[in-house]
Structure formats: structure tokens, C-alpha cells
């Protein structure tokens, strides 16, 4: 196939198929001062895509707070880095792989994990944990079950093989994701606070290397199409296969190379492979890069410069080394059996220049590609405010309690995470199942705490408040295990930004998140935006997902989410349940409301950031003083679910008493934020009350633990209902396995 000429690209508007609009093409011509050839047009197409350029979201992302004493590296590099004390730092980032996963769920999820892994070790950090945040349609659908099964297998397939534990995450199920599942993967790494690497191509004359796997024809146009509608059609030819074995070798080789001190800059090849890595590295240095494409190791004969530049073959990195120290790279990569090729030089002329067969095949100013990429202030629809409506309490408490626990979004996720190696590296202090995961820092008595959260129902009902809650909830999960929250990363999964309603959701959610980040002192240090999440023209509910990081000083200070059974069993009557935070009985935005009415109803739940902050601070005090033996925050499903989870965990019963003046339905199922249930020794309960009061946090005895296996609910001193733990447990533990038992592995469609 002959490549089209610059004239054909213009006259036949071929640039459109490369992802450029008419006006963007005109801008390219203006910046180049001539008509781009096919390679150049392709390069502009991918770099100016939504996926790479953030053109619809950039203007809004600037509103995130990104600074703080703890921040060593904010957004702009491959990952954010925060200081965790004692000379150590943590690098972390979250990334979406929604569209590829919708087409080929196993490989889509696996390559998502591989991609975020490279972002972390690129920073010079040793990856120590993965988290995954997933969204699917309801499990009554064969295709959804197939996607769920394969995505989980793909995440495990990559993570287990590279030997990094998957320690947490979330899965939610809602009809809004039926045609467009979300797969967000987060990776966390540890590095010396002064040992950070950057993706910068500095030092004129320094050699540029392509290392790792060979470049093949896979995934060409992945980045362009990730931003287009209907992934099913577009991605068919663009499936990339991950090779976790190679990924593991590449990680070890790169960490060894970085440790040698010979690396000037290093960058992984993610979307738009060689194109984005080279342009971004040059852009960060304010310089240029010249590459001879004949030297790129390829997998297939006859690859054109266009194909090489746009290939998304996995497990590759671009590395700039100090001149004269090339041998180090050759020695290390050969030992690991990996490709390493000297493909070019760092220049100071500010241009990305590509040569092939002795000719210049592309010559573009780097600033035009990266810094001057178009930024759109897309129209934003006004918002009328939340829909206020009465939420009928038609579902009985008993039915609701059981239905909530059996709702796959709330139900036990063991079916998912027992497919993940959660303990490899032998540093997992708290794996999946707790409010936040804890991974020990080698050689120190401290652990990194991490959690992901994001509830699209809240954001759909009230984008700004929903944004606040996404951050508050993730950060609260850290505080609940006793950790000090430090910073967040995020994935903004939204619909079509060309629709003013979607832009309003995006803009408001960002405002809400930014406010929460400021209030909770957890700046945004990295993140990712995924737009055009829609199917058949219907956008998904806006889904910002937050990944939060904190540090726990002293492993023995961790607060588990259920009390240690051995301790409780000795003297059941010694232990009391308390509730911290402002109590509430409003059903706005609850899963109860959605079950009762069949759609999200009302406003988003109550949240108050100042109150939230006080609760988090209080939890750290309680951890430092070892005041409580368990803590579990109130989230989806409300207090009813929180208490049930805590009691099921220790296989005990208990009594809880509704606060005066509250409606019982609302009190049990409200999803108001900023509440935590704790288990405290009765002898220390008074002290707990005093500490809470001093911290400005409402605190009240909620009830007690009991040896009998029932939950008794009391109202004004009278017991009004009793539920057996066994029955609750069955609803909670069997929901997902039962739904998946109907599924036959690998089957993507319904029978006749």
C-alpha cells in the first residue's frame, strides 16, 4: 500500500481518519508552515488526540491543588511522588483501559496493568502494589459476566506473573456501564526520596535507546480510537497482547539500569508508543530528539516509519543515557535477553526529526506537538441543581438489608480478589477486604496505606458534591485503618465532552474534588482522563475514581475493620460499638433509594469537608493511642451494611440503637459521609468520648457486641427487629459466586 501524499491528505481529507478535525489540520499546516506528510499527520493525529493531549479536560484539570510539603513530584511526569518520611518516597498513578477492555477484556485489562506498571518503575520506584477499580453492567447479562470474568482474569494474569500483589480495589455494577465497562488500574512503588528519575531528554548528543520488546504492527491507532465512539468497531484490528514475563524482565533491567546512574531520562511507551515517548521527553527538556528508524528493532519485515511511530507494542521503553556509558545498558539488557537499540540523539534544535533509509521522513517542532496542542474550552451547560424528591420507604428494613448486602456492588468481592496474588513480595499487612490496604515498607516499621473509591450515582445526582465525596471516601478509608492520608491520584471516566451536559459534570466534579483535596490536605499528584465513555450515544454516569495514598507509622497501630476474634471472645461484654461523626437519616442518593425506585434518586448524600477532616484526624489520634480495636467507615448501603460487615467479619452478633429523633429507615440506610463505626473496650469508652469531643467530632455509643449471632436493632429502648448473621452472611457471600456460577467460562453470548 502506498502512503498518501501531502496533497492527497489535504484534498481527500485523509487527516480526518487520523483523528484530526478540519480546524486542527489547518492549525498543523500553520505550525509546520507546510502540508504534513503521512507520518507527520499521523504523529499530530495521535498526540493531539483526547487521550494524549487532554484537550477537553486540560483547562479544568488546572483547578486541582497539586502542591504540599509531602509532594516531591506533582502531575506532569509519569507518576506522582510523595514523601513518606525516613528518606523514602512513594510513586503512584492510576490509569484507565476502558475501551480496549470492552473489546478484548482479558488483554485489555492485562495491558492496562502492564502500562501503569511501567509508569511507576520509570520513576525509579520499585513497584509494590496494584489496585483495580472496575465498573460493569448488571451480572444478569451474559456479555457482562464474560467481561467481568475476563477482566479479572486479565488483571490477575499480568499482576500475578510480574510478582506484584494486587491488594485492593473496587467493583461496582450498574446498568449505566452495560455497554461501556470501566477498567482503571493503579500501581504504587517505593523509592528513595532523593532517587527519583524523570522522563526528560537532556544533554545534547546523549544517545537515545529503545529497549524491551520489538516493535510490531499491533495497536496502531489505539490512542486515536480510544477517544472515538464505539470501541467495538474501531479496536478490532488494534488488540495488543501483553507479555507479563517480558514486562517483569523489563522492570528488573530498567531498575538495574537506573541504579547504575547512567540514565539521564526514561519514559515508557504507552499510548502512541514511540511518538508520545519521544515528543514528551524532548518537550520536558525543552529540546529535540533525532531518531533513525532503521535502527528500531521490529518484529515484522517491511514496517513503515508510520507504523513504527504509531505502534503500541507493549513492554517497550525509551531511555536517554549519559554519553559514553552505553555499554552499561547493553550489558544489562543482554543479560535479561531484551532488545536494546541505539536509535538516536538528543538535540537542541527543538525538533522531532525522524530519518529512514537516509531520508528525513518527519521534522516537526516539539512545542507544536506537545505544549501547543489545541486546548478546548468546550461549552458547559448550566445546572439546575439537584432534583429534590421524596424517597419512598417502600422496601422493608429486613428486605433492604438483605438486598443491599446481596447487591453485587456491596457484596463480598472475594470471588474477584482470590484470583489475584495478594501476598507476593511478602509485605502485605492488609490485603483486599479491609477499608484500605497496607503494604509494609522494607526495613522500616511503617506501611503504605492505599484505597480506591468513586461512586457515580452521587456524581450523577450532584456532580460537585459527588466529586467531593469521591475524594472524601477514598481518603477516609486510609484514615479508618489508622494511616495519615498524603495525596491522591485519579481517573476521570466521563462521557462525550462534546455534550455540554457532560462537560458540566466534568467541570463540577473537578471543582468538588479540588475542594475536598484542599480540605483534606491530599493534593492531586497524578491522574488520567478517559472521555467518550458511551454506548449507542448514551453516556455513562460520570465516574471519577480516586486512588488515595497514606502512611501508617508503626504496623502494630493499624486498625482492622473487624475486631480480632480471639480478643473479643474472651469477654464479649467488655466491648462496645461507637459511632463517630454526624448521624443522619436522609436517603438522598442512597443505594436503598435506587433499589426502591429503580434509579438514582434525590441529591447526593450529605458531606461536610470540615467535619470530614476532623473525623480523619480523630482516627489518627485513636490509632496512635491504640484506643479502638476495629473501625469501619459507613459507605454504600449505609450504617446497616457497615455494622453487618463488621459483625460478619468476627462472626458475632450485636445490638445497635437508633439515635433519638431519627427515622429508622433513613438512619440505617443513609449514605451520609464522615461516619465511622468503632469497637472500643468499655473501660476506655469514656476516654474515647472525651478525645472525640476535644477533636470536635460527635460520638455516641451505638451498641454492643454479643456472642449470639444476631443483629438486634433497638428504637427508644425497644428491640424492633432481629436479623441472623448467618442469613446476612449468605446474602453477602453468595451474591457474586451465585451470579457467576450460572456463567460458563469464556462464553460471551447467550444460548438460543
Amino acid at each position: 500500500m502506498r502512503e498518501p501524499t501531502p496533497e492527497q491528505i489535504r484534498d481527500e481529507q485523509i487527516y480526518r481518519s487520523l483523528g484530526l478535525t478540519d480546524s486542527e489540520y489547518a492549525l498543523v499546516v500553520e505550525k509546520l508552515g507546510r502540508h504534513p506528510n503521512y507520518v507527520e499527520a499521523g504523529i499530530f493525529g495521535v498526540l493531539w488526540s483526547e487521550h494524549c493531549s487532554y484537550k477537553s479536560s486540560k483547562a479544568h484539570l488546572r483547578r486541582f491543588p497539586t502542591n504540599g510539603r509531602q509532594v516531591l513530584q506533582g502531575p506532569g511526569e509519569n507518576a506522582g511522588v510523595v514523601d513518606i518520611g525516613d528518606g523514602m518516597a512513594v510513586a503512584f498513578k492510576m490509569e484507565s483501559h476502558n475501551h480496549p477492555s470492552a473489546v478484548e477484556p482479558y488483554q485489555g485489562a492485562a495491558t492496562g496493568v502492564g502500562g501503569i506498571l511501567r509508569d511507576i518503575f520509570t520513576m525509579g520506584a520499585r513497584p509494590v502494589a496494584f489496585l483495580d477499580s472496575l465498573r460493569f453492567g448488571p451480572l444478569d447479562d451474559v456479555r457482562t459476566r464474560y467481561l467481568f470474568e475476563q477482566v479479572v482474569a486479565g488483571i490477575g494474569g499480568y499482576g500475578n506473573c510480574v510478582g506484584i500483589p494486587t491488594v485492593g480495589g473496587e467493583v461496582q455494577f450498574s446498568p449505566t456501564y452495560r455497554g461501556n465497562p470501566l477498567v482503571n488500574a493503579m500501581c504504587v512503588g517505593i523509592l528513595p526520596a532523593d532517587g527519583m528519575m524523570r522522563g526528560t531528554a537532556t544533554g545534547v548528543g546523549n544517545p537515545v535507546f529503545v529497549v524491551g520488546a520489538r516493535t510490531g504492527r499491533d495497536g496502531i491507532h489505539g490512542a486515536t480510537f480510544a477517544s472515538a465512539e464505539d470501541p467495538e468497531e474501531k479496536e478490532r484490528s488494534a488488540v495488543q497482547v501483553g507479555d507479563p514475563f517480558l514486562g517483569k524482565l523489563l522492570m528488573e533491567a530498567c531498575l538495574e539500569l537506573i541504579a547504575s546512574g547512567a540514565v539521564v531520562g526514561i519514559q515508557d511507551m504507552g499510548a502512541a508508543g514511540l511518538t508520545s515517548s519521544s515528543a514528551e521527553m524532548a518537550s520536558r527538556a525543552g529540546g529535540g530528539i533525532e531518531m533513525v528508524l532503521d535502527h528500531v528493532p521490529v518484529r515484522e519485515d517491511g514496517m513503515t516509519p508510520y507504523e513504527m511511530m504509531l505502534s503500541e507494542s507493549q513492554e517497550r521503553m525509551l531511555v536517554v543515557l549519559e554519553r559514553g556509558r552505553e555499554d552499561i545498558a547493553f550489558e544489562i539488557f543482554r543479560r535479561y535477553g531484551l532488545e536494546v537499540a541505539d536509535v538516536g540523539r538528543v538535540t537542541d534544535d527543538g525538533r522531532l526529526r525522524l530519518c529512514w533509509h537516509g531520508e528525513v521522513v518527519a521534522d516537526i517542532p516539539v512545542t507544536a506537538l506537545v505544549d501547543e496542542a489545541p486546548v478546548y474550552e468546550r461549552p458547559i451547560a448550566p445546572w439546575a441543581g439537584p432534583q429534590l424528591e421524596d424517597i419512598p420507604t417502600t422496601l422493608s428494613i429486613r428486605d433492604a438489608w438483605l438486598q443491599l448486602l446481596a447487591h453485587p456492588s456491596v457484596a463480598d468481592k472475594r470471588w474477584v480478589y482470590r484470583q489475584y496474588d495478594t501476598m507476593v513480595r511478602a509485605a502485605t499487612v492488609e490485603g483486599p477486604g479491609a477499608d484500605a490496604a497496607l503494604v509494609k515498607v522494607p526495613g522500616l516499621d511503617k506501611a503504605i496505606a492505599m484505597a480506591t473509591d468513586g461512586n457515580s450515582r452521587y456524581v450523577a445526582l450532584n456532580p460537585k458534591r459527588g466529586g467531593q465525596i469521591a475524594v472524601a471516601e477514598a481518603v477516609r478509608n486510609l484514615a479508618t485503618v489508622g494511616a495519615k492520608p498524603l495525596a491522591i491520584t485519579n481517573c476521570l471516566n466521563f462521557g462525550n465532552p462534546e455534550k455540554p451536559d457532560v462537560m458540566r459534570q466534568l467541570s463540577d466534579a473537578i471543582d468538588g474534588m479540588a475542594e475536598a483535596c484542599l480540605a483534606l490536605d491530599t493534593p492531586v499528584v497524578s491522574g488520567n482522563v478517559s472521555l467518550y465513555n458511551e454506548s449507542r450515544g448514551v453516556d455513562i454516569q460520570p465516574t471519577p475514581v480516586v486512588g488515595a495514598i497514606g502512611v501508617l507509622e508503626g504496623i502494630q497501630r493499624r486498625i482492622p475493620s473487624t475486631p480480632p476474634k480471639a480478643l473479643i471472645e474472651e469477654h464479649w461484654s467488655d466491648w462496645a460499638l461507637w459511632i463517630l461523626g454526624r448521624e443522619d437519616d436522609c436517603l438522598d442518593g442512597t443505594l436503598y433509594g435506587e433499589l426502591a425506585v429503580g434509579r438514582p434518586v434525590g441529591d447526593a448524600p450529605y458531606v461536610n469537608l470540615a467535619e470530614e477532616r476532623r473525623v480523619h484526624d480523630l482516627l489518627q489520634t485513636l490509632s496512635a493511642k491504640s484506643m479502638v480495636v476495629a473501625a469501619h467507615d459507613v459507605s454504600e448501603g449505609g450504617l446497616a451494611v457497615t455494622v453487618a460487615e463488621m459483625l460478619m467479619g468476627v462472626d458475632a452478633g450485636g445490638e445497635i440503637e437508633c439515635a433519638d429523633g431519627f427515622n429508622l429507615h433513613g438512619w440505617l440506610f443513609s449514605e451520609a459521609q464522615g461516619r465511622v463505626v468503632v469497637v472500643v473496650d468499655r473501660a476506655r469508652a469514656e476516654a474515647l468520648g472525651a478525645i472525640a469531643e476535644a477533636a470536635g467530632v460527635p460520638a455516641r455509643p451505638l451498641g454492643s457486641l454479643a456472642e449470639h449471632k444476631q443483629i438486634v436493632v433497638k428504637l427508644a429502648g425497644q428491640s424492633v427487629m432481629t436479623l441472623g448473621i448467618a442469613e446476612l452472611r449468605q446474602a453477602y457471600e453468595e451474591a457474586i459466586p451465585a451470579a457467576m456460577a450460572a456463567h460458563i467460562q469464556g462464553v460471551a453470548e447467550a444460548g438460543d
Partner: protein
Amino acid sequence: MKWAVVVFPGSNCDHDAAQAVRDVTGDMVDLVWHDVTDLAAYDAIILPGGFSYGDYLRSGAIARFSPAVDAVAKEAAAGKLVLGICNGFQVLTESHLLPGALLRNDHLQFRCETVELIVENHTSPFTCAYRPGERIRIPIAHGEGRYYADETLRQRLAADGRIAFRYADNPNGSVDAIAGVLNDRGNVLGLMPHPERAVAAWMTSQDGRLLFESMHRFVEEGSYARANA
């Protein structure tokens, strides 16, 4: 005593195993690359968990051709202790240092959780610190851990006391719920569970400590009999 942990391309529990040995026994541990040809300097050799060569083709199938595995065979023949954990167990069966084979789990999924094991043989160099029939909790993490042995082999293993551990609740369809087997001489053990993940108070269990302690005592006290005294 001195331990070696062999590192294959794709091993990922190598550091965990070395750390566990150091923490439990205080002994010296070297990580050795798979191209090593001589392991005579070591009293005990661990083939760690992971995905050697990606576990492509069959788990352990490619690693077994490493020079290190020849060296391991030589030391095993000389009576040294060889412990294969998870992928290491797979390498040992593929290289016929242990009988049988490890197949894809019967439910076809990867499975990671802390499970209960029954100590079937408490007199081996690897298990002498456990009580007979003791129930211990050790994590598993594998997709291909279904132990397979034909009828003749099953009977022989049982008769010769070569089943070191059984699962209390078979998680993968292994024949006779076998979790770990010994060679006929008793100085090579392969097991799917990960004792190195059960050695500290903050882990899900500490029951793996006695396995490393058994090996340490066996070597330090110089004889199998004295370890059991």
C-alpha cells in the same frame, strides 16, 4: 548453615524466600542466578515461586533446563536439602527430581488465599519441627497446582510416607488432596503453598516458620535422627 535461592527469569518469590530464611534462622542466604553450575557450597537450596519464563508452555518446563537445575540435581543426589515452593515445585516435577506433575487447577482459576494444611509426615528434614497431624495455615497462590499422580504412584507415595502435606480442603483438585511431596530419599520437598509468606506476626499466619526451622535444625544438628529426638 548456608542457603541458596535460585533466581530464574520470572522468579518473583526469590527475595521473599531469602528474607524468610534470614528472619527465621539467622542463616546466610545467597540469591544465585539460574546460570550457576556449582551449588556445592550450600547446605540447602530453594527453588522459589514465580513464573519462570512466564510459565509459558507448561509451568517450570523451560526453567528445568537451566544449568542451576543440573547443579541442584547433583546436590540432591549428594543428600543436600532441596525445597521447591510453588513454581519451584513445578520445576522439580518437570525435571523429575520429584514424581508426578502439576496441572491447571480444576476450577481453571488462579487461587490465592490462606488455606489449612495437614502435616502428614512430621519426620522429614522439612517437617520435623511440626507435631504429627498438626493443622497449619499457609497461603497458596497458583493457577496450576493440581497435583497429578497415577494410581501406582499414589499408592507408593502414601505407603512410603512421602506425602508431606495435604490440604484440609482441596483448593485445586489435587489427587488425594496432596499439597507437598518428598522424593524417595526424603531430602527434596516440593509444595504448592508458600511457607515464606507465613513467618511474621503481621502476616496471615506464622506457621511457615517451623518448616525453615526444621531444615535449619536438621542441618545444624547433623542428622535426621537427632532432629527428631
